[in-house]
């Protein structure tokens, strides 16, 4: 059976710097998969290549059996690929509800309409409000992102991606820098996502990773160091050396 998302021999260099070195990677349907590795390992770059924000230097990307290596970003989204950003990429001067509604409207194919008012699209509004409610943001719907605390902004990051109803969801450090209340909420939301969605999460918080993931890939300097279930990764000496060790010392 084909994977939800797969890469074969994916490479990327910026000039002399190689940040993805022959990455073969499989994300199974309905997977709960974590991608870990030290800062600068190339995790975000990997996600950028998957979504089409960056072209790979070589290699292939396959989404649900279809080669999408050269496909435009927008089309990949239509095929069910959604993502969040490590550094907030929100519509800062728009209200929270509009941040989510923009995504919902794109997915529903109504975003290009010109002659009917946006507010008459009750379905888009209702769906966006529901989504906000599940993330505990219902009361903040009318607030501009600018005026929203950082933790909640991280939740909006996720809400936008969920508004796309993705089949494959890529989360780039969703809980980084988030206070514990929202961090708990994020985990709760992730736990409650439909089981058929394949999730790839990049995360530094090992507690979260080990609680959430059924499979872990360790990336170091653009190369896959090791991949396996959490128990194996926890025991792996090399991982301790390059990554987990870092935390004990730090």
């Amino acid at each position, binding site marked *: 059976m084909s994977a939800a998302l797969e890469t074969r021999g994916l490479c990327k260099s910026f000039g002399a710097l190689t940040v993805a070195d022959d990455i073969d990677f499989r994300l199974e349907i309905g997977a709960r998969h974590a991608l870990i590795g030290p800062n600068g390992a190339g995790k975000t770059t990997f996600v950028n290549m998957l*979504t089409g*924000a960056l072209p790979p230097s070589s290699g292939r990307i396959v989404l649900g059996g279809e080669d999408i290596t050269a496909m435009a*970003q*927008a*089309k*990949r*989204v*239509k095929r069910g690929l*959604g*993502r969040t*950003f490590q550094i907030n*990429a*929100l*519509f*800062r*001067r*728009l*209200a929270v*509800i*509009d941040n989510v*509604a*923009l*995504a919902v*409207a*794109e*997915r529903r194919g*109504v*975003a*290009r*309409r*010109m*002659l*009917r*008012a*946006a*507010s*008459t*699209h009750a379905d*888009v*509004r209702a769906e*966006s409000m529901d989504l906000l409610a599940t993330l505990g943001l219902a009361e903040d*719907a*009318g607030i501009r992102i600018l005026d929203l605390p950082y933790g909640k902004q991280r939740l909006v990051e996720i809400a*936008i991606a969920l*508004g*796309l109803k993705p089949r494959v969801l890529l989360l780039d450090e969703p809980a980084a820098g988030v206070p514990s209340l929202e961090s708990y909420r994020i985990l709760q939301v992730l736990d409650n996502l439909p089981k058929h969605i394949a999730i790839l999460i990049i995360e530094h918080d090992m507690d979260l990773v080990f609680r959430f993931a059924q499979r872990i890939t360790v990336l170091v300097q653009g190369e896959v160091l090791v991949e396996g279930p959490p128990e194996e990764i926890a025991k792996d000496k090399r991982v301790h050396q390059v990554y987990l060790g870092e935390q004990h010392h730090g």
Partner: protein
Amino acid sequence: MSAHAGGYSADPRIRWIESLPWIVAIAAFFALPEYLSLGARILIYILYALSLDLIVGYAGIITLGHSAYFGLGAYIAGILAAKAGISDPMVQLAAAAAAGALLGISTGAIILRTKALTLLMLTLAITSVLLEIANKATTLTGGADGLSGVVVAPILGLFRFDIFGKTAYLYCLLVLLLGWWLVRKMIYSPFGTSLTGVRENSLRMHAIGAPVYWRLVLVYTLSATIAGVAGGLITQTNQFVGLNVLSFESAGELLVMLILGGVGRIYGAFVGPVAYLIAQDFLAKQFPEYWYFGIGTMLVLVVMFARGGILGILDGSLVKLRSRP
């Protein structure tokens, strides 16, 4: 008079205060008959500024070359009227609109692939190309002497353009009303919201699957069309076309008017030209040095201290008034 940002929870109904510009315009028609030609000019520039607000204020495209579309509309209408013997104003205006649209979509499709300085540079270069053509193709355009002999027949065969500018004023007012209605409708639509999305964060718009490039090409074309119409109007009311319709200074001036009024709020495009052109009419001819100095200083001050323009300042003071115990 808060900003018109559209969005999925914004009420699209027209508020009573939005009828104010139209009431003022009609009152001016009766009260100030000797200023109607200035009035028509202001109405045209409002339409022109509105088209600019659409791309600068809502879509976030910075351009120094919007006069290309205005100027093309002006020349097309003028050439039809003076050289091709087509004197029907509706036909002239439709041709100006079509020319603006055509140039808008062809240049937009090219320049919107780029960003920032490159885009700015391209808008400038395109306008410069048009200016050079207008300057050198003297048989068609009259070159530096300008194009005179513009003949405009009565509108719909009924309303003659009179020397007091009454017809011209009302005609411009009607066209502006139509343009405003369209722009306003669009800003409150999902399309309009997605434009502000591009302005706020184009990275994210790509990531939610929006065809960003096509959206921009579309709004750019619309804006160019409206600018073309405004250009056609200026030809019809002046019955003359000069090279300055295409100049960088005029594009800069337009930007100044819009900023002065307030960007990305529809009515900034109304307030700016009114303030600017009236002040210019009284001051610029007597004191050209002071005039430019004044505009420059004002721009610097607006950027430093009053980023919302006149309407932004009004907003701010209204909020203060209300919050006073």
